[in-house]
């Protein structure tokens, strides 16, 4: 963030258009480069959430699976806030407890 962006934010103004342009480009290029269509990405997102929620209780609303790109490498980034861990079926059940600090594990898979 530049000083101008910061001042704009303080004054409740829109960010400078160059900042918007960069953000829009990064998003569109992540999709262009991976060549994944939105339906496929959505399906993948649902399945990932499904798998993860088998083990831990996650905040579906806050959960976010997206494509990011840096240095011409596209990464699938999942940011899934954990509400609480679920007792595993094989283990002795322990009373549910809130995960301290609400960790945000980031799961990354890189694609050249």
């Amino acid at each position: 963030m530049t000083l101008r962006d910061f001042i704009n934010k303080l004054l409740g103004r829109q960010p400078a258009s160059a900042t918007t342009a960069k953000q829009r480009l990064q998003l569109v290029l992540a999709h262009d480069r991976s060549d994944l269509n939105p339906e496929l990405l959505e399906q993948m997102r649902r399945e990932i959430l499904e798998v993860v929620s088998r083990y831990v209780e996650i905040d579906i609303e806050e959960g976010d699976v997206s494509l990011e790109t840096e240095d011409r490498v596209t990464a699938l980034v999942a940011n899934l806030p954990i509400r609480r861990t679920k007792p595993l079926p094989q283990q002795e059940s322990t009373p549910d407890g809130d995960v301290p600090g609400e960790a945000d594990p980031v799961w990354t898979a890189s694609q050249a």
Partner: protein
Amino acid sequence: MPVTTSGSRSILICSGKGGVGKTTLTANLGIALARQGMRTAVLDADFGLRNLDLLLGLENRIVYTAQEVLSGNCRLDQALVKHKLEPNLALLPAGNPRMLEWLKPEDMQTIVGMLRESFDIVLIDCPAGIEDGFKNAAGAAEEAIVITTPEVSAVRDADRVIGLLNTRGIKPIQLVLNRVRPKMMANQEMLAVDDVTDILALPLLGLVLEDEQVIVSTNRGEPLTLNGSGSPAAQAYNNIARRVCGEDVPLIDPAKVRRGLRAKLGRLMQTKIF
């Protein structure tokens, strides 16, 4: 793979998007390289919409084109149009648009291979788009210069082209950022130079400031680098030519082009705070 002729280089000039300055760069860089003593050939690979002849002011001197050379109806030296004021530069004009129906990447490689036998540098002016015209031209090049402007559509299209060039193993691929407006950049109403280089992940070969003289020079068919013009774009093209030849020439800093208090304030506002 293109035929390697020792010491001779073939450089593709491409952008993806049309109208960002490919042909203007080819014409100006061609003249600038020739003035530095390099035997330079510029090849118009845009058979559909050829314009390189017009920007070089050679449109009235075309007799044969790449088409007659390929079909064996004339020799290469008969088709080449030498620039009168800069004899180190020759243009091989694009053939008829109907050539697109039968032209193959091998044909392009043949032409470029022939040019490389008698020239130090062959600049290939690539057509816009990523279809056959692009593929034919790219197949004949070993290196590439991607030109773009600081606009979202141009950068996106450049990214597509870079992806395709990478797949073909073309390198080095270098970037020219065209139509830079320092004032808009200072106000952060135009993508910054670093934004574009970060996104495209290419080394910067040159920055060309927006310059009205470019239009004046195309009107006349006299590239800016031809008459020793000191205009900002002419300097930029000359610097690009020197860098192509391996000279280490510092890039201009768009923020330092402007002087005074407003410019200082603009620079302060661009400070990255986190």
